[in-house]
């Protein structure tokens, strides 16, 4: 591992100001991804600014009925929170489907959002990778790409975002609270991550030294009827091939409202806006669920080894909506 300077600031503004002065640094929270990336030489920050004990580790009720999750809340504590389990079960399920018990105890809410792709070429510093070294090329485009993106990719990068938690937050309309050198701002989690385009080295829309301080879950009357399902190559402790988070409200056999997001298919958690639009006001029936999934996946561009993700995503969406419509 390359050497780095380690700083611990007294408060959030101090941490932001410290990193803003540095050219190539990073915030450190749980470290479960960052420390590993530093060990393998994918990331070589000159400075780490430790924020684990600076942001809140509390989950607070908001006056509007939502929840505010401090950025330092661990994945374990968030998954086990009674309010999350009752009001946003998809989020609890998403967290529990990721990593292992001991990793979830270290990993934080802010850090989970900012974890980097597990594309094997991104991790292999002997191969070209535009995300790791811009301009060197994408090894996955014509290489082993069974795990890669089918939506929103570019000729420069076909990596997927690895987080389960972020997929559920995207479906639930969560909003990240940001503090940066220019002050505070808020950004929907659905807009936090980018598509790769010409700059696959940029995972998110955050600017240098901007820090996620919390994530707000808005009140959603039908979010208790939400669910997360993940398909992977073994039963536990593996990243998603495809996953789906969904919440559904049905009345008199008609879809009143719906939220759907996909994981494992794109460079960011994929909010299925087209499927949602196709479903609202229509019958809560298998045919329309499948048609909505097909509408979302119409623009899928599978690579040589990941064509299976298209029917897998379609079947996951269809099955989950069926289950959610049967329960309420």
């Amino acid at each position, binding site marked *: *591992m*390359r*050497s*780095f*300077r*380690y700083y611990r600031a007294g408060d959030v503004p101090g941490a932001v100001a410290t990193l803003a002065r540095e050219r*190539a640094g990073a915030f*450190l929270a749980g*470290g*479960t991804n960052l*420390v*590993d990336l*530093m*060990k*393998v030489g994918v990331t*070589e920050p*000159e400075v*780490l600014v*430790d924020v*684990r004990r600076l942001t809140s580790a509390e989950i607070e009720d908001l006056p509007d009925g939502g929840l505010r999750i401090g950025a330092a809340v661990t994945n*374990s504590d968030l*998954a*086990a929170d009674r309010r999350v*389990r*009752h009001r946003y*079960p998809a989020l*609890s*399920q998403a967290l*529990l*489907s990721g*990593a*292992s*018990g*001991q*990793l979830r*105890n*270290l990993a934080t809410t802010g850090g989970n959002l900012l974890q980097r792709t597990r594309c094997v070429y991104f991790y292999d510093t002997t191969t070209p990778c535009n995300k790791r070294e811009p301009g060197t090329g994408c090894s996955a485009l014509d290489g082993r790409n069974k795990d890669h993106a089918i939506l929103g990719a570019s000729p420069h990068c076909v990596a997927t975002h690895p987080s389960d938690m972020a997929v559920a937050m995207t479906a639930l309309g969560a909003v990240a609270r940001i503090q940066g050198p220019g002050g505070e701002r808020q950004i929907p989690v659905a807009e936090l991550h980018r598509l790769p385009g010409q700059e696959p080295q940029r995972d998110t829309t955050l600017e240098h030294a901007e820090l996620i301080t919390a994530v707000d879950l808005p009140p959603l009357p039908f979010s*208790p009827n939400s669910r997360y399902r993940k398909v992977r190559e073994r*039963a*536990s*402790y593996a990243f998603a091939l495809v996953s789906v988070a969904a919440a559904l409200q049905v009345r008199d056999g008609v879809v009143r409202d719906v939220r759907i997001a996909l994981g494992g298919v794109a460079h960011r958690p994929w909010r299925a806006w087209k499927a949602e639009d196709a479903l609202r006001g229509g019958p809560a029936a298998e045919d329309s669920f499948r048609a909505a999934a097909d509408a979302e996946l119409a623009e899928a561009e599978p690579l040589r080894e990941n064509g299976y993700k298209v029917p897998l995503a379609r079947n996951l969406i269809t099955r989950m909506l069926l289950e959610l419509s049967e329960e309420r």
Partner: protein
Amino acid sequence: MPEPADRETPEPDIEVTLRADGTDYRIAVDPRTTLLDALRERLGIYGPKKGCDHGQCGACTILLDGKRANSCLALAVAHDGAEIVTADGLAADGKLNRMQRSFIEHDAFQCGYCTPGQIVSAVAMLEEAEAGWPSHVTTDVSAEEIPFTDEEIRERMSGNLCRCGAYANILPAIREAAGVGRQG
């Protein structure tokens, strides 16, 4: 991106205080030092093992401020003041704890390399289950009572790999230490 000339030169050591298995230590560490390396190389506590060193195998599992954690991914400088318990510390009074005895009674290991991590993880996992934490295989995460089945044990222990494949005996060892009969 041009690199500063001194990137290969270590940064100055930073002093940290760690309480490990009931003893207080104050050591100066290179900022790159993980808790795993600090425990093994500096404090002579060899229970936590370096398996993969990437958070994938669980052999380095310790109790970090009461929660199980992969010590290979935790930087010592970031855990100044932490309270650590390793498999050694579970028997700090010279008496094996319930989980350690159960692993021996069930022959729940072959080469033994993953065993300290398995045992620490199992002890913490039971506390998580007793606190009512759900898992990925919990059918209803909003349920008040979660049945503690074999399926739950397997899922909750999935962060600890055993290359010898001693799982067939690890599972009953944990089941018995948890005081539950054959379920699921």
